[in-house]
């Protein structure tokens, strides 16, 4: 299989060292955001100021890699100018594409910067080829990131019926996967990725340690209790253990990580343009480990797709950095539609 038919590897950068780790370990592109609520990883101390952005774009592009700027939250009432300013800034910097979700902002970017490449964010929640084609027709979107709710057969159906490049998630923590439409965080805290750029913001999170256990609360709501030897997860509603009909369990979803190494050949075969790694909130060490492993897997696939097999060392490296005890193929291999 030729290298140019391989899916691109898109890696997260929450800081300049993470960006450099991604580039140094074989990412084809990095995605990043401003230090504000115009992107869905608006966490304290994370992301890029102007100085770091300039250096990051230079570092990546001078090495032949791309920089994608996520401006993927929804413009809030009275503050549309802030989101437009983010698009202006990205265009000025010369990023390779902007990743947008808000149709108003897509329209602004298309009219103001006709040459700027537009990607439809996963937060745009386009799950069908009709939705993807709408974004293409109306805004000239060149690539769409699909939410993690589709089976591989459904991803293939989208690809066959659209001229738009399709990007899917390849590795990282899973949430309820209803990207762009999830309001669980708002239910608990009044704030959500769509509105403030953060799911379950840290100021609402309390980890309470007591002998033998740790308790997690989100804005006072009990999310989970962990024994001393139990793995912990992110303190989101969707990953909590709740009592339902007298039974206490992960009522919404078990903390797991998506890992597509096993189905990488199928992903490449159906024509997926890019694979995205989740985790802008994670450290440079995570970015380096995951990028390196997925690069090795993609290169193995490129050199001999017939003999591709998942090496135990890859799985071990990825399992170590995963949230939860298990890795899954997510919706990709689910029998249901």
């Amino acid at each position, binding site marked *: 299989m030729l290298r140019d038919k391989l899916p691109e590897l898109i890696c997260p950068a929450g800081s300049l060292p993470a960006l450099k780790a991604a580039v140094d370990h074989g990412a084809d592109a990095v995605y990043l955001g401003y230090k504000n609520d115009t992107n869905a990883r608006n966490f304290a*101390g*994370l992301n890029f100021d102007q100085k770091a952005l300039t250096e990051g774009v230079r570092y990546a592009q001078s090495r032949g890699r791309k920089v994608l700027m996520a401006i993927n939250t929804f413009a809030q009432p009275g503050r549309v100018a802030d989101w437009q300013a983010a698009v202006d800034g990205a265009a000025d910097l010369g990023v390779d594409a902007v990743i947008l979700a808000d149709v108003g902002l897509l329209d602004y970017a298309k009219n103001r910067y006709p040459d700027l490449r537009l990607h439809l964010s996963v937060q745009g929640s386009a799950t069908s080829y009709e939705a993807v084609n709408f974004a293409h027709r109306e805004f000239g979107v060149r690539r769409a990131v699909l939410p993690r709710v589709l089976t591989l057969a459904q991803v293939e159906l989208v690809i066959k019926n659209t001229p738009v490049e399709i990007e899917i998630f390849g590795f990282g923590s899973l949430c309820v996967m209803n990207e762009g439409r999830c309001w669980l965080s708002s239910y608990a805290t009044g704030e959500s990725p769509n509105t403030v750029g953060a799911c379950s913001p840290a100021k609402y999170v309390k980890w309470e340690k007591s002998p033998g256990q740790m308790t997690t609360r989100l804005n006072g709501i009990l999310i989970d209790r962990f024994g001393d030897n139990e793995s912990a997860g992110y303190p989101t509603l969707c990953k909590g253990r709740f009592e339902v009909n007298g039974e206490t369990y992960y009522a919404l979803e078990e903390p797991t990580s998506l890992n597509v190494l096993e189905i990488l050949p199928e992903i490449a075969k159906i024509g997926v343009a890019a694979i995205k790694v989740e985790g802008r909130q994670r450290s440079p060490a*995570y970015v*380096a480990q995951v990028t390196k492993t997925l690069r090795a897997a993609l290169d193995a696939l490129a050199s001999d797709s017939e003999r591709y097999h998942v090496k135990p060392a890859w799985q071990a490296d990825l399992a170590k*950095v995963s949230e939860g005890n298990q890795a899954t193929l997510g919706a990709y291999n689910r029998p249901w539609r």
Partner: protein
Amino acid sequence: MTKGFVIPRFRLPAFVSAIGVKLPQWPHALALTAGLNVAVKMNLLPEDSLALLENRVFFVEVLDTGGRACFTYRDGLFRPVFYAPEASDLTFRANLSAFMQLLARQEDPDTLFFNRELSIEGDTELGLIVKNMLDAVEWPQLPKLPIFRH
């Protein structure tokens, strides 16, 4: 990521901490704050994040050495604090190997946290600020020790 030298996961024998807790703790706080202040002086730590640490009290405990350090940030400098750590805003607890893996950027703090090798208590947002601030530091070439190579 560390090339060549990998810091293994280890736990020092219990007698180390049994002795360690009985030793004076002020040298730890002094060493740690001195190191942090070098980073401040070299402008490695972003000012907007530092401003959020003003007058907050931090407590770091190395479980298997028994070492403890309590410090705060005030008027542009990290300063040791010599009173009870119960008053701290943020507490980090881990074994020495986990702290070394963190400093060498060999392991991700979330990974260590999920695996319960790193305990973070107190103000969660402050914890995130500190974590992200350290992640964003571009360490200069000075670390030549194998453990700092990445």
